[in-house]
């Protein structure tokens, strides 16, 4: 079994060139999952944006979350739309709500058998998946919590 859920060769994430989400990607390499929270009104926000969608403050802070979540929705792609996935077979993508961060949602793969039954509402736990190379990065994956 490979160390990563999907084969190498998919597009690699790089921080936006205006610096908005660099703290997120840097923190992931340090083993921490951070999302945005407004320092003024406390609203949680994901994905990253320069301004709070609730109070329009620019005073957004990066806040570490526990990595405990709930499956909100999911899909199982079969057809490979990228060369790196040719002959790979199906895989599962989940959209996970984070109850301890205002129910913001994160995307990741559901680790384990790609044929497994997926249950909306199931509790999941984040697993940080490192991709070490010339330009290292890390991803957030999910596994069903015991």
């Amino acid at each position, binding site marked *: 079994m490979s160390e990563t859920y999907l084969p190498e060769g998919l*597009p690699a994430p790089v921080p936006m060139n205006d610096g908005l989400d660099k703290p997120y990607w840097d923190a992931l390499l340090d083993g921490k999952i951070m999302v945005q929270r407004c320092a003024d009104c406390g609203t949680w926000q994901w*994905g990253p944006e320069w301004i709070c969608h609730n109070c329009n403050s620019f005073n957004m802070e990066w806040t570490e979350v526990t990595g405990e979540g709930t499956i909100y929705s999911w899909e199982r792609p079969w057809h490979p739309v990228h060369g790196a996935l040719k002959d790979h077979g199906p895989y599962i*993508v989940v959209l996970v709500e984070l109850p301890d961060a205002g129910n913001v949602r994160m*995307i990741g793969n559901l680790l384990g058998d790609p044929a497994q039954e997926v249950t909306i509402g199931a509790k999941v736990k984040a697993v940080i998946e490192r991709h070490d190379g010339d*330009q290292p990065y890390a991803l957030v994956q999910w596994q069903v919590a015991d």
Partner: protein
Amino acid sequence: MSDRTLRGKTAIVGVGETTYYKHGQSPDPEFVLVLKAILAACEDAGIDAKEIDGFASYSNDRNEPTRIAAALGINDLRYSNMNWGGGGGGVAAAVGNAAAAVAVGLADCVVAFRGLAQGQFQRFGKAPPVTAVSGDPAYMSPYGVMSPLQKYAMRAMRFMHENKVDHSVLRAISMASYTHAQNNPRAVMYGRPLSEEKYDDSRWIAEPCRLFDCCQENDGAAAVIIVSAEKAKDMKQKPAYILGAAQGSDHRCGAPVMNASNFPSSSFASLAPRLYEMAGVGPKDVDVVQSYENFTIGVMMAVVEHGFCEPEECNEFFQLENLTAPGGKMPLNTSGGNLAECYMHGLGLQIEAVRQIRGDSPNQVPGADVALSIAGPMVHHVSTDILGSEATL
């Protein structure tokens, strides 16, 4: 009613389309396809192409109005408009923007158009050829979420979960398009019917969608011509009056990483009430519906959001006999739509709505006076318009 309305002020008086090809098989470059569609629309309308003085399109169409105007020898280019947003969410918006320009006198004769030659350019259904991604794609592509279906499947999966929707709903939507295409010689899928068995046996593309839940990718071009209602009365074709057009989406629909507030949605929840208010009609008055099928899942949620059935009624409502002309409760995609006629980024559906109002659809709904056309469900900026016959004014 406020006079800040499009209702009845303009009409579609000409429609044009090229031959529809499978993707990559157009013998013509994209720009030539666009010119041919515009000229066909002019001929249909009975006007000279030099009477066009405005252009409206969407989805970053590559064919700029200045080039078209120069190529056609237009004397006075008065209006050009690009509706932001990828995908086909801007079809009805382009028609609405054209109508708005005519209604307030910015221009007199505006063409809404779209051209696609995916052999010449990048295909929609393939991941872009890049090795690194930033912004929203950085949170999706590394997890294998790259194609339009992969980006939207989870909206439907949640909707189907919340409302206990059966896969038979998606099958009925697909079969309605294929059924209608069998009477439409222009349809790419003419002569290629779809059975329940063939649908059920087809491969998964991304659950919850099978092959036949997904639109084709095609090459071609289409155009519609919009003039004032006053001018339309004396022209060659029976006018299809624009009763209303609306565009947009609800709270934080475009929020990154799938954080839209109203996620299990086709993005029409706030738009549909605005549309009906302007048009002065409700879902019960609509005789025929064209709903852009990027994927059947988007049609399902869009039809619900336009008030044709409640979310929990999907399993009963979406039956093939309810969705087919001439006798169905809500005839849907009567040309064969994006699934089975052609994926001309939805502009073909506008043309079919015009045909229904004129009375010359290959699957005519008897006495159709009100035709509703939905554009680009599930993308982050969508649009819908309603056309009416003279009797609706």
